[in-house]
């Protein structure tokens, strides 16, 4: 896989290519730089873990890759930032293009699930399809979308929870609903921000299993943020983010190097998620 990444970078065919990414937030009037010229490339079907300590900028990087935020403009002679996804530079995309990108091409999974509490499990999943297809499009595809949502939820073991509200679910169940919601529109890339960060190890392992099983079936590209080395080990490749910079360049290192002996690593993967 490492060879594939290098090859993709060299040939310029990476599925997601991030270059010269800077991001500064403002705390009041004080500018707080978070990312300093981040470079990253992800191939189609690849699972890349972004590993870093709290405050290292990994969630910011994920938000930028997901079109939720925009990078800083080029300044002080810095090259222009770009986030090229499948040939389109979303760093230069308009609002509508970004909305479309989020609803069509990527799916988000957050650490705190972020389900809509007033909706049932099934509705929480289909709401993504409602946004994607719009009023009339969704009306035409309602049955199909509901069927897909049911299938996803059943594949995650939630077939009996369709009518429940999120408040009636456990943490692990909520996160599985969130994953189903992220996958309802059959995105090209899943962006997972600490997907197991709020769960115990066993439940977290099961969540990762669910993601990797789906990836195995569909060839989904996964970009996952974590601060847990053991979780990162399950990815194809690990990119370490330290103080807003990618350690060792955008390619990262293949997983399995300096693999810890404990944690939600391959040793605990019940599903035998691929570690290449």
């Amino acid at each position, binding site marked *: 896989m490492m060879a594939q990444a290098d090859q993709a970078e060299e040939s310029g065919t990476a599925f997601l290519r991030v270059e010269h990414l800077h991001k500064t937030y403002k705390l009041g009037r004080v500018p707080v730089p978070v990312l300093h010229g981040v470079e990253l490339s992800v191939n189609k079907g690849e699972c890349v873990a972004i590993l870093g300590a709290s405050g290292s900028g990994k969630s910011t990087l994920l938000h930028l890759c997901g079109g*939720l935020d925009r990078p800083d403009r080029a300044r002080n002679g810095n090259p222009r930032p770009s986030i090229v996804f499948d040939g389109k530079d979303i760093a230069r995309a308009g*609002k*509508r293009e970004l909305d479309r990108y989020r609803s069509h091409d990527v799916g988000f999974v*957050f650490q705190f699930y*972020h389900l809509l509490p*007033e909706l049932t499990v099934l509705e929480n999943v289909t*709401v993504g399809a*409602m*946004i994607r297809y719009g009023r009339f499009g969704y009306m035409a595809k309602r049955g199909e979308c509901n069927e897909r949502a049911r299938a996803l939820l059943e594949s995650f073991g939630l077939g009996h929870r369709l009518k429940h509200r999120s408040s009636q679910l456990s943490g692990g169940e909520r996160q599985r609903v969130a994953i189903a919601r992220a996958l309802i529109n059959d995105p090209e890339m899943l962006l997972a921000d600490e997907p197991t960060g709020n769960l115990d190890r066993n439940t977290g392992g099961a969540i990762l299993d669910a993601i990797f099983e789906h990836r195995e079936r569909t060839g989904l590209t996964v970009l996952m943020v974590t601060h847990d080395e053991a979780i990162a080990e399950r990815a194809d490749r690990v990119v370490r983010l330290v103080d807003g910079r990618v350690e060792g360049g955008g390619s990262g290192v293949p997983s399995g190097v300096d693999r810890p002996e404990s944690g939600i690593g391959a040793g605990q993967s019940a599903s035998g998620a691929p570690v290449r």
Partner: protein
Amino acid sequence: MYQALLTRRYLTSKLMPLLAMAAVLLSVATILITWSVMGGFLNTLLNSGRTLIGDAYIAWPNVGFAHYEELSDRLEEHPRIEAAAPVIETYGMVRLPDDRVELIQVSGVDVESYTRVTGFGDTLWWKPLDKPARKDKQRRDLRVAPDNRPILQRFLDQGMAMERPDPETGLVLPAGILGIEVTGLNYRTAGGIYLPLNPTRNTPTGDFESLEMFMPRNGSISLTLLSLDSTGKPTDPVSRVMPISNEFQSGIYEVDSKTLIAPRDVIQKMLRMDEARRIDPDAAGGAFDYEVDPDTGQLRPAAPKAEIVDPARVTTLLIRGVPGSTPEEIREIAEEIYEAFATRHAGEVPDPFAIQIATWEDRNRTMIAAVKKETALVLVIFGIICFTTVFLVLAIFWSMISEKTRDIGILRALGASTAGVAWLWLRYGAAIGVVGATLGVVTGWLIVHNINGIHDWMGETFGLVIWDPRVYYFVEIPREVEPVKAAIVFTAGVMTCVLGAFIPALRSARMDPVKSLRFE
């Protein structure tokens, strides 16, 4: 699509939108009740005025105009005019049974034509009734008692004929009809009916004397009019005693307390507006001419050789249009007909440009304008109060959006556009508005429809009587809700909510999705 789903869920799972809905409900109901009652008050007033005057009128006050019967016939020939009534309107003094002297407006009418134009017969108070008025719960109305039916029927007949037999001589005399508030001998109850009083007065011996006085039975007034000649110069005042055959209630206090309706020919004579003959001064012969009396062969003063007939005059011609006609239309027709009439009688009747031709609304413009302005003022004040609902909705939505910040971030992460998120809240506001305004209209309609019952209940339970028939001259509170008004108030209620949701919706659209997701 997701907006519809979330709107539905937010509506049924949150307390705050219920508060917003309640605010809209109360505002809409308040405005609708106020508008309906005040509007109904105005309509009742207008209808009463129209009942008394008709649609339009032609008037030449004081002096009056001649050939009115011809003008009346020509007006009635027009297919859009139902009836016309020649009337004399003037002012006079009345001495009442208790020796009070009051200034009064006198209408000299011919009952047949006057009834066709004005519905005068319906305003006569003393007549037999089959069932009591709704508010007369104690059944005190003398008109309902079967024992009184014969005498009340006689009062009604005498009222319609404007005559009353003299109790001593049995001669039938022309009689007048007084407004029911003129004499002060009738007491208006809280149920809106009148009961005759038996007043007392001091006698020279220091005792009290009870007056057995009931105007239609034995009451008379002394009427004094100041007449004008055909050139408008005042002549001597004329007085006569006039029996009263009945009393009328129009519903307008100003009319009921200051009007006497009397036979037109009587008033014409008193005012010297009846037909008169005089010698033509230009004719051959003079005052000192003599002629031979063929019977005696003696000389005698010669009879006049030529007479001039001054036709009878009236001051006003009341006109009623056929159903469906408007007062303005009738006025225009009257103007056309009068112009042709004046051309035929040039020099005998007032010029078309000078004579007054107007609608009943024009005549009561001041009173109508006052009530309209009162209605508008009350609506504006209530409107301002209800406009605070906008700020209430705004505050509720602002709070809800703060609470739902993370949901907004989630929706944005799923690809919802800024416009889509803004529409979610606008739609939500509209939904609250529609539900609140619908309930408000229903509540308002129910209250207006049952307002008299509610009012009676409040009076009986708490002693709170707002609409006292002794003060307001309509017995019942108007209780009609016009669909157009309901639609306007409903729309305003919905718009209030949308307006209140607008700024919070903009705020939600402008939220940074990343910050929204991190919101705690």
